[in-house]
């Protein structure tokens, strides 16, 4: 027998079949948790947001339109919860420009301020033989350096691999905005990743 679709499971849960909810959580556990670890940069925070996300799914299950796809709905809720979490996380530090700034501001130690080139994705492919935890750390570092809106759209696109039209529909923003934001996100991430591969990440 074919396993039930996510949407059928939501419908079953709404009808009182509580096991359907467990199936949904188990089915999306790995992907959603990875997405949240990458978005928040913190495993403990990802755990919390994971739970908040499914609590929200429970609370909103009645309002879910089963004609739509569940997974984008889940990831959009998770991204919103993660954003709230990061906002709550604490006040940002203030920095006076008169204070020593080191390399702050994106300057290049060797050549002063580095101007933006049109970014080419000529980065080394992740080496499967490389130490997985080291690679994981470098990826997370590169992600953490991205502004949140860019990190969010990059991760939504990478984890869901949906077309621009679908992402635009799910996020409720114009297709052109999705496209330009994702291009910027990929370029920024590639630059950070390249820097980390060259060993000049901070």
């Amino acid at each position, binding site marked *: 027998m074919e396993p039930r679709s996510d949407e059928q499971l939501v419908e079953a849960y709404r009808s009182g079949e509580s096991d359907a909810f467990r199936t949904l959580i188990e089915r999306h556990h790995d992907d959603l948790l990875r997405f949240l670890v990458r978005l928040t940069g913190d495993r403990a925070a990802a755990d919390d947001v994971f739970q908040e996300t499914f609590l929200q799914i429970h609370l909103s299950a009645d309002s879910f339109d089963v004609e739509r796809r569940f997974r984008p709905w889940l990831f959009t809720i998770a991204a919103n919860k993660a954003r709230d979490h990061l906002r709550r*996380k604490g006040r940002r530090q203030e920095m006076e420009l008169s204070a020593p700034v080191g390399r702050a501001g994106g300057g290049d130690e060797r050549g002063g301020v580095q101007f933006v080139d049109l970014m080419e*994705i000529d980065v080394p492919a992740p080496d499967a033989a490389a130490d997985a935890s080291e690679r994981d750390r470098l990826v997370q570092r590169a992600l953490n350096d991205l*502004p949140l809106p860019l990190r969010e759209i990059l991760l939504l696109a990478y984890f869901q691999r949906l077309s621009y039209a679908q992402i635009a529909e799910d996020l409720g923003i114009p297709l052109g905005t999705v496209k330009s934001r994702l291009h910027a996100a990929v370029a920024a991430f590639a630059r950070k990743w390249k820097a980390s591969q060259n060993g000049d990440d901070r």
Partner: protein
Amino acid sequence: MDTQTSSATGEPAPALGAADAAALDSLVEAQFNVAAVAETHRGRAERIASLLGLLNDVPIGRSGRLIEETFGNTLGMDPHLCADDAAALDAWLEACGDAERVPEALRPRAERHAALADAVCECDAGGRESLVDRTLDLVQATIDRDDESLVFERGAMRRVRFADVVSVAAVLLLGASVVWPILSSVRDQARRIACAANLHGAANAMSGYASLNQNALPMVTASYGGGTWWNVGKGPDRSNSANLYTLAREKYLSLSSLACPGNPNALTVPASPEDRDWRTLDEVSYSYRVISGPQTPRWGDSTRVLVMADRSPVVQRAVRGERVNPEASTPNHGGRGQHLLFNDGAAEWHARPILSNGDNIWLPRSLERVLHQLSGGRLTGRELPDGPDDAFVGP
């Protein structure tokens, strides 16, 4: 500009101070012409312009795009993909992330996008069972809280006029079939509240016992341990429940405090003042940590362990030689969950008989492991906790 960027260490990213932010705004409004910035901001604007390298290295205004890009780069704004990579990214996403479906000319670049995406998507997602269970517990706790608020709202009805109550009663009578499940829920809630109060009473009693017995948990004799612990009523040295009964025998609490309203056979008054145990398993409302002599943890230990819970459905069935479901909840509350009391005095409601570390409270860890490996397994009533940190209660 976005200032929420986190640093590599996970610390919040620095943001400009108010004065610097105002100076920056002025600099932008003045189209990066420091001389045109208001005098109050000029000093800071000069530092900003200097930091951006705009004064010495780049002729201001000669290339608006260069300034914009420099500015954007410095503050973390968008860099741009080259045309081929942008096209490859678009094609890769339109192919739903399948590089094989990307036109050949763009495929090598699409594969680079795929490799980057894979690196991002691969990270540790371990601890699956625990997180799934904690999530379900959170949802269940929310459902329970909603139920409790319903009880609270019903309590508030006492403050309204009698005529209002009569009106509401009439409506309730008319819609009895609809309302019945709610009333049933209210009864369950009342039982649960009374049961929780019992556990708090037991916590006080155990604390009192511990203070006079070198922090020990209640036990019949200091050397208690071994034997078949589920022989309720067969002699105090042959039953684990006799250890818990010690609290009532030694007047730390009344026996009715160890009677859950969800157990129809619970004993509320001792059958004889000489009794040292309940007479039958059915009379026992709460399961108690299986006492295992010197290995038994103590009240108030820094290691948090379970000491008492609503009665075990596993022991009830195992005694009769029936197959058990280790994940079943106590019959005291209709299988919806159970109260647990820990050695720090905290009483908690858990929807499942499994602690956050995955420990099943109805079974010793050795049997949990066996059950994990096999599809079946039987308790014999002789098992002991695997160590001080193994939650295991019975009967």
